[in-house]
């Protein structure tokens, strides 16, 4: 162009800021709302991941603790020396392979066990209270419970062997059910997370339709337009997910701190028995990182696909003028 306006004032100087305004606005109400929704959903998902891992750990611990022990119960009878019988039972049990040790629950310990029912200050010697021998078992090499039971019954007719099998079976079943319910809830929360992120991202993009159209009409390629949006939405998704995931981990750390401070109290012991030690394992961190990565990837991909689809629809309208998308 010889005499176009571009050459007319060539001396004109412009001072533009060093960093140009991003083509996709950095922050608007839709973007902030999306970030908030992502933060809330990531928080819930990370909490669920942590809770499921804790339940799984606790369920395994219940199962393992109870299956590590078996009990010999000796009932009192007239003219029966229960103390001798206890020692005999202890000796028989300890002689079997796979038994780590056998321990007699002495009278004070028995009184402690019965205290919730009988109260304090009771002389157990006056009462026909059964006595126990607790057998600790090598979990990796368990003994033959039937053989121990038969040997004990043969030597001491008043004695019965309880290998806790019924309890273990129930606990295994309960632990599995609890873990399954936890995993099912996690699956539901993750599904809700995915759907929320996808629809919220699409909603946030709807307000940017004009930008997509203008870029398309000034000759930008679909990849260029999608690239602009996916970068912006990646950061929105990542920010929301880090805030939500970080919040969940912080909450776990607060619980862990509280649990450790209250470990010695009755309240703390009850919580520890039910829910384990509230420790933040590596699994919880990895789970939270996976949730954050999932959310950021999902937001980016949804943004890309929505932009490509919008361009496709603009071009579809071109091919079929009767179609109205917006």
């Amino acid at each position: 162009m010889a005499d176009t306006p571009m050459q007319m004032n060539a001396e004109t100087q412009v001072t533009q800021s060093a960093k140009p305004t991003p083509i996709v606005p950095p922050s608007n109400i839709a973007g902030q709302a999306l970030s908030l929704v992502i933060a809330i959903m990531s928080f819930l998902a990370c909490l669920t991941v942590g809770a499921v891992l804790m339940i799984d750990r606790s369920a395994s611990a219940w199962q393992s603790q109870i299956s590590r022990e078996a009990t010999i119960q000796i009932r009192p009878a007239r003219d029966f020396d229960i103390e001798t019988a206890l020692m005999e039972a202890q000796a028989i049990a300890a002689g079997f392979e796979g038994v780590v040790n056998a321990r007699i629950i002495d009278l004070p310990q028995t009184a402690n066990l019965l205290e919730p029912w009988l109260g304090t200050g009771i002389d157990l010697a006056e009462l026909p209270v059964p006595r126990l021998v607790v057998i600790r078992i090598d979990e990796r090499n368990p003994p033959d419970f039937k053989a121990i039971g038969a040997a004990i019954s043969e030597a001491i007719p008043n004695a019965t062997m309880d290998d806790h099998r019924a309890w273990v079976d129930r606990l295994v079943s309960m632990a599995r059910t609890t873990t399954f319910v936890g995993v099912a809830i996690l699956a539901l929360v993750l599904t809700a997370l995915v759907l929320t992120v996808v629809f919220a991202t699409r909603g946030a993009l709807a307000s940017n339709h004009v930008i997509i159209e203008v870029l398309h009409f000034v000759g930008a390629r679909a990849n260029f337009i999608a690239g602009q949006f996916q970068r912006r939405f990646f950061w929105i998704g990542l920010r929301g997910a880090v805030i939500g995931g970080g919040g969940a981990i912080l909450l776990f750390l607060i619980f862990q701190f509280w649990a450790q401070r209250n470990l010695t109290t009755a309240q703390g012991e009850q919580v520890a028995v039910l829910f384990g030690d509230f420790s933040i394992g590596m699994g919880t961190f990895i789970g939270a990182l996976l949730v954050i990565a999932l959310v950021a990837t999902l937001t980016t991909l949804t943004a890309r696909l929505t932009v490509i689809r919008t361009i496709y629809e603009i071009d579809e309208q071109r091919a079929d003028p009767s179609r109205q998308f917006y």
Partner: protein
Amino acid sequence: MIKFENVGLRYGMETEVLRDVSFEIPERSFQFLTGPSGAGKTSLLRLLFMSLRPTRGSISMFGRDIASIERHELPILRRRIGVVFQDFRLLDHMTTFENVALPLRVRGKDEADFRSDVSDLLNWVGLGDKLHALPPVLSGGEKQRVAIARALIDQPEVLLADEPTGNVDPHMARRLLRLFLELNRSGTAVVVATHDLGLMEQVDARRMILNNSHLDIYG
């Protein structure tokens, strides 16, 4: 450069908006496109800009039949066309300067290479003091001029302007017309869709008049 042959356009099951429209836009030509409201000027411009395809007839753009143009080729062809939309379509979060520079930015050009061109063009359309203003604070006429500058910045082979002087005073309208004529002299074919008879009388140019879905050409 652009050739329409027996082109018809219909939206859905409505009657045809354009019927048997045939014309050519040669290189370096200048024409007005006019007609009453609802005559189909904007639809014809959209066909010229390839944002619509005709329901019948054939259109050839830059030697290519548009029926055979693939989706991914459209951006490259559109870069040869500058468009001034009736509703401006400026990006509100970008300054005047950035809106005008947008076509160059999406082509991957460096700001240092086009900074003076953009500012010169904005000076010429009378917006030299509004380089950093955002569109929401501009008047209708100022937005119009930003839209025109954006369409011109990459020196397109064809400029399509939909009512480019609809929001400016007569003095600015004459100034913009001079800009279009200068562009035309430098090699750009120009199609100006307008209702403004006064504007058309200032230039001895071809007139394409749309009426009852038909196109008549004078000059």
